[in-house]
């Protein structure tokens, strides 16, 4: 990115002043090195988002940002319905409510290493992953609608997962105001046999080792200590969310003109929040959030089943579950008052600061856990929401490392078998149906996640709590 286009306000804060059709400035949080490596498309997309009707304060960009569809991935934008604000299918993305959940195991690395191969094999056997995989469940039309209303709570009521999981999930496991009737028959058909599946691409299940603790006090409240083993799942709303994203992107692109919205890029397709189309999308998107929450809950149940068999002393209580592709109605401070805003986070994680009422009570004093996925050979991180992130970014932080090399280049650069062998030599077991898929997800295809996390911490978006490194990785 050409840094001459930006005003540097502090070490990690860069502003694009309001110009031309921009209604607000754009603000990028990153170190100078990350800024220099960031694609210029991120700048263009942030500027375009800043032109949308009803946007409040600024179009924000997180340190892991890269070129997305209309909105940058790593983008945050809040809209006020009272000021003609919009909702955008592209601002949420195709994988609605894709997110990360992390479970304690009560075990340490040495416990896993004794059974590493067996545990990896059983997880790979029991967790449906990859193209064409299906779950054990087949939902009737009625059950589908109940799932889309109930989310993780629906899964728990059916015997998947534990009731105490729910308070550790955003929205307490059930997104309100979901409208299953707004979800097309095609989207439901796409999901019929995909409940409890991991997906593919950058989605994974990892057994991870806590290799560093940066904030002892918050780590204690989160129940995380150095050398602990945790299990992390990264996946989303599967075919249902993808189909909803596809359908509404088209509908919003086609209807923009009749809503009086000029789109600088078709991918910014959006509709006024108060329009029928905007409300249709909101109801469908919330149903997809419930689908993602139910899916991760079912996967958790499957993981617990494997641990019960291989390491029966482990109980796997949930640390937290947080999504990074959503639009949520939240109260924020803006223009001298508190307003209800529609906050889009596309590849960005909600990061409520200490004391926020939506944080589970045992964790509230520490701030909301912010779970950041890395690549299979590097590290993931646990962060905590800060008080400052409310004014910095509507309480939002980054979501991952962000790609440094395209899939196409990665496929040509790395050999999947070699990646698996190299990671095995470092004690990391990779299980995947596709060596090409592994090559496309090679650790070096991603930015240095530590640099992204340091920037998020230094910018005050979230506080670094612990680093997690993989021992076993199941890739779709």
């Amino acid at each position: 990115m050409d840094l001459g286009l930006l005003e540097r306000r502090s070490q990690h804060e860069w502003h694009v002043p309001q110009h031309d059709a921009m209604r607000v400035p754009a603000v990028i949080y990153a170190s100078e090195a990350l800024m220099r490596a960031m694609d210029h498309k991120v700048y263009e997309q942030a500027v375009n988002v800043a032109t949308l009707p009803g946007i409040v304060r600024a179009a924000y960009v997180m340190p892991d940002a890269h070129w997305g569809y209309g909105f940058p991935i790593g983008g945050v934008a809040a809209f006020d319905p009272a000021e003609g604000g919009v909702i955008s299918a592209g601002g949420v993305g195709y994988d609605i409510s894709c997110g990360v959940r992390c479970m304690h195991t009560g075990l340490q690395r040495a416990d896993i290493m004794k059974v590493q191969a067996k545990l990896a094999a059983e997880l790979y056997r029991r967790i449906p992953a990859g193209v064409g995989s299906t779950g054990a469940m087949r939902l009737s039309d009625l059950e589908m609608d109940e799932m889309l209303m109930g989310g993780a709570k629906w899964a728990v009521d059916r015997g998947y997962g534990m009731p105490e999981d729910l308070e550790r999930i955003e929205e307490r496991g059930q997104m309100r105001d979901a409208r299953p009737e707004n979800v097309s028959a095609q989207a439901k058909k796409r999901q019929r046999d995909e409940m409890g599946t991991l997906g593919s691409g950058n989605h994974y299940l990892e057994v991870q080792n806590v290799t560093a603790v940066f904030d002892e006090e918050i780590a204690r409240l989160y129940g995380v200590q150095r050398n602990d083993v945790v299990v992390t799942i990264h996946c989303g709303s599967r075919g249902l969310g993808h189909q909803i994203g596809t359908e509404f992107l088209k509908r919003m692109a086609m209807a923009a003109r009749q809503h009086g919205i000029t789109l600088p890029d078709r991918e910014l397709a959006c509709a006024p929040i108060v329009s029928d189309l905007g409300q249709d999308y909101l109801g469908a998107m919330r149903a997809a959030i419930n689908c993602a929450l139910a899916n991760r809950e079912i996967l958790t149940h499957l993981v617990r089943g494997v641990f019960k068999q291989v390491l029966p002393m482990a109980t796997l209580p949930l640390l937290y579950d947080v999504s990074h592709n959503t639009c949520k109605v939240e109260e924020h401070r803006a223009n001298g008052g508190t307003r209800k805003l529609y906050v889009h986070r596309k590849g960005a994680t909600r990061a409520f600061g200490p004391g926020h009422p939506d944080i589970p009570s045992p964790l509230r004093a520490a701030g909301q856990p912010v779970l950041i996925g890395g690549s299979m050979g590097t590290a993931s991180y646990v962060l905590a929401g800060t008080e400052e992130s409310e004014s910095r970014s509507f309480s939002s932080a980054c979501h991952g490392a962000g790609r440094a090399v395209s899939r196409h280049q990665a496929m040509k650069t790395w050999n999947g078998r070699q990646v698996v062998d190299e990671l095995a030599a470092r004690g990391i077991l990779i299980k995947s149906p596709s060596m090409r898929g592994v090559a496309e997800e090679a650790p070096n295809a991603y930015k240095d996640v530590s640099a992204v996390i340091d920037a998020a911490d230094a910018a005050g978006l979230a506080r670094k709590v612990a680093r997690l490194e993989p021992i076993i990785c199941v890739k779709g």
Partner: protein
Amino acid sequence: MGDCATGRWELYDHEADIGVRGFGASKSEAFEQAALALTGVVLDPALVESHERIAIQCEAPDDEFLLAEWLNAIIYEMSTRKMLFGNFRALIGDHRLTGEAWGEAVDPARHHPAVEVKGATFTTLRVGRCGDGWFAQTVVDV
């Protein structure tokens, strides 16, 4: 883009995802080749055997929306039927496409599919003339 009038396909770079591009002597052939590129995101299309034919029809107000519709219809059939396709026919006229996809059920042990495609986006979505032929392209989300 080289010779555009001969049917062929290629993948191109997008920072997080991947672009699919087809070339052909006609718009219809460029759409068929773009569909092969879509399969090429998942595996080498030559590895897919043509056991079953699926009819696909779509329409849209312009060529570019029609390409997105065509690719999304194929993605939908791949997802709901758990199939891969290695051969396509498309006939375009008056903003409508009548097509078919030939393929077989996914066999992970034989196909080793790399990634599932979530949807065809509008990013770099273009359909147009190119020399004596046509090209059709867009980025797909994986």
